[in-house]
């Protein structure tokens, strides 16, 4: 059974179509990564699934409940963690958790037990009596997660949970998410980080309000648009990446060239010789080295497909 099912879900704001006939399913117990540029419709989609916005047309079920007719049941059965910190800053960690626990109907010994479990899971033990405003970004996100988990929802929506927190806190938070997923929870995560996307079981990529990609990270990398037959993707290290990139883009053999971290990823016909690539770079005054065949990254996938959809001008 699926935790989430969307069927032609659409939402308009006036003339603007924010979410355009989006259809997909999320399997129970999986981590679903929902990706796309800012303003592509990710948050609108999540808000509809959480019952915060009603769809203009189409339908969706969450945990088997219809998002329009059974929005209160949907709300009882999900956890929601927003990209901006949305707990009470003047209340302590413990008071925040007590409040959200009781809102979901937990009381007495059960509430105490659930609080303890949530606190232990996210490691907030030493900060119980600190006000939320005094916590650092990473700890705030942990508190938000604990609050989203307090009523033991089977499905948790996380809207950019790692936005604006430091790399270590980000890594720790993802370790937590894996722990949750391994205990059978379904996670619906939006993110801009490609390394986070790589860790998801399934990915949906939304662009200009439409879902354009859907699959496992591996499936996406093997798409024919990403790895056309007769073409090869190579990685080239260089000290002058900007210069090298513009030089390579002018070469007739360059099918596509992007910068991935400090390396250039070049897509070229399989019969292009490594030496001619390096010679071209040398000639442009931006020598390259360590040229080797590489797997496409998810970033390659999204950049390539987004460019293709954006039209021939780019």
């Amino acid at each position, binding site marked *: 059974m699926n935790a989430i099912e969307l069927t032609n879900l659409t939402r308009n704001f006036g003339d603007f179509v924010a979410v355009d006939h989006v259809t997909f399913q999320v399997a129970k117990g999986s981590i679903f990564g929902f990706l796309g540029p800012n303003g592509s419709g990710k948050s609108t989609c999540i808000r509809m699934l959480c019952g915060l916005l009603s769809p203009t047309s189409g339908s969706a079920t969450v945990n088997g409940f219809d998002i329009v007719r059974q929005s209160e049941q949907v709300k009882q059965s999900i956890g929601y963690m*927003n990209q901006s910190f949305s707990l009470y800053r003047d209340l302590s960690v413990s008071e925040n958790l007590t409040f959200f626990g009781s809102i979901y109907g937990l009381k007495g010994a059960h509430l105490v037990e659930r609080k303890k479990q949530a606190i232990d899971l996210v490691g907030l033990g030493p900060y119980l009596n600190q006000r939320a405003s005094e916590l650092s970004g990473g700890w705030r996100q942990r508190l938000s997660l604990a609050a989203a988990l307090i009523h033991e929802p089977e499905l948790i929506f996380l809207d950019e949970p790692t936005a604006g927190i430091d790399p270590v806190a980000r890594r720790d938070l993802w370790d937590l998410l894996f722990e949750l997923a391994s205990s059978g929870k379904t996670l619906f995560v939006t993110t801009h980080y490609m390394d986070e996307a790589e860790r998801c079981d399934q990915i949906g990529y939304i662009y200009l309000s439409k879902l354009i990609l859907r699959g496992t990270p591996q499936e996406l990398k093997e798409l024919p648009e990403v790895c056309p037959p007769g073409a090869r993707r190579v990685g080239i290290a260089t000290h002058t990446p900007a210069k090298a990139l513009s030089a390579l883009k002018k070469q007739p053999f360059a099918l596509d060239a992007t910068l991935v971290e400090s390396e250039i990823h070049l897509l070229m016909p399989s019969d292009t010789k490594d030496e001619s690539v390096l010679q071209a770079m040398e000639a442009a005054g931006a020598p390259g080295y360590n040229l080797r065949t590489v797997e496409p990254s998810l970033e390659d996938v999204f950049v390539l497909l987004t460019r293709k959809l954006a039209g021939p001008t780019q």
Partner: protein
Amino acid sequence: MNTLNGFQAIVLKEFMHLRRDPTTLVIALMIPMVQLTLFGFAINFDIRHISTMIVDTDRSAASRQYVETLRTTDYVQITKYGQTSHDAEDAIRCGDVQIAVIIPPNFGRLTSLSLAGPGLPPGRLRPQVKVLIDGSDSQVATQARFAFVKPSIGAVEPRFDFLYNPDMKTTTFIIPGLIGVILQLVTVSLTSFSLVREREMGTLEQLMVSPVGRLGLMLGKVLPYLCLAMVEVVLVLLLGRIVFDVRVAGSIWLLLLLSIPFGMATLSLGLMISTIAQNQAQALQYSLLVTMPSILMSGFLYPRETMPGVLYLFSFALPVTYYMEILRGIVVRGAGFADLWQDVAALLILGAILIAISTARFRKTLA
């Protein structure tokens, strides 16, 4: 789904917010006290000791005696003496005095004549004085005329018997009304911020994705502030007693009990504002929009019956209109519940309507 869901949790949370923010709490409690003290002294229709100039051109025993009788009334206070009527006009124009009494040269002679001969035609030869009054402040002018009213011989002399407020003190009338107006001002603003603040902080969205009941949220927001409002009622009554010597003629317990429906109604009014306003600045504007006119329309200063039709009808929609009746009834006239039940019923109905509107307006979905 239970629409009252989460009521208890919201109440506890709101109390915690209040405890965490002692500044707001102290300000909320102090503002009514400060306002009552300031306005209580400032609003006073008991105009006495109006500065007066005497221009005595007669200088007889009779004129001196007349000045003496004027002096004994509290209305005028003789601050200056002048020589001519020009002096009098000058003194009023430059604001030195507000009344000038000019006694003509024949005053003493006419006085002795009118006392001696009752057969003389009345009016023509009766002694007269000219009184100049600065009419620019109509309140002062009206009061000033009282100083010169004398019972005329032969006319029926009315004997007044004031049932309540025998001293005709304004404070007895103003302070209870002021308490109502000030309590409304504070209670409306207390709740008008509540939902908007959560919207601005982003916490409202977290509440919206929870199964919290709409009515539970609304009532949960009102109850803690109702407790605060009741503390304020006690404080302002104490202050009225200590500073203005306004004693509650009726039962103080009844007054406190009947303050509850008033608190419910005004807090709900604030809550309704909170469901309309998009941010705290707007909430402040809206609450001023409601509370300022109600100061004039509730019957606090002027009788509601004198207002034009539409305004008169509008005054029925204001909780403070009914509370004004309750306050003045219990504090001044010692009224009991049987005299006031209609006002109580009106407050309860108004409160229920306002809560219903707020609940209906508040959607657990974004715009």
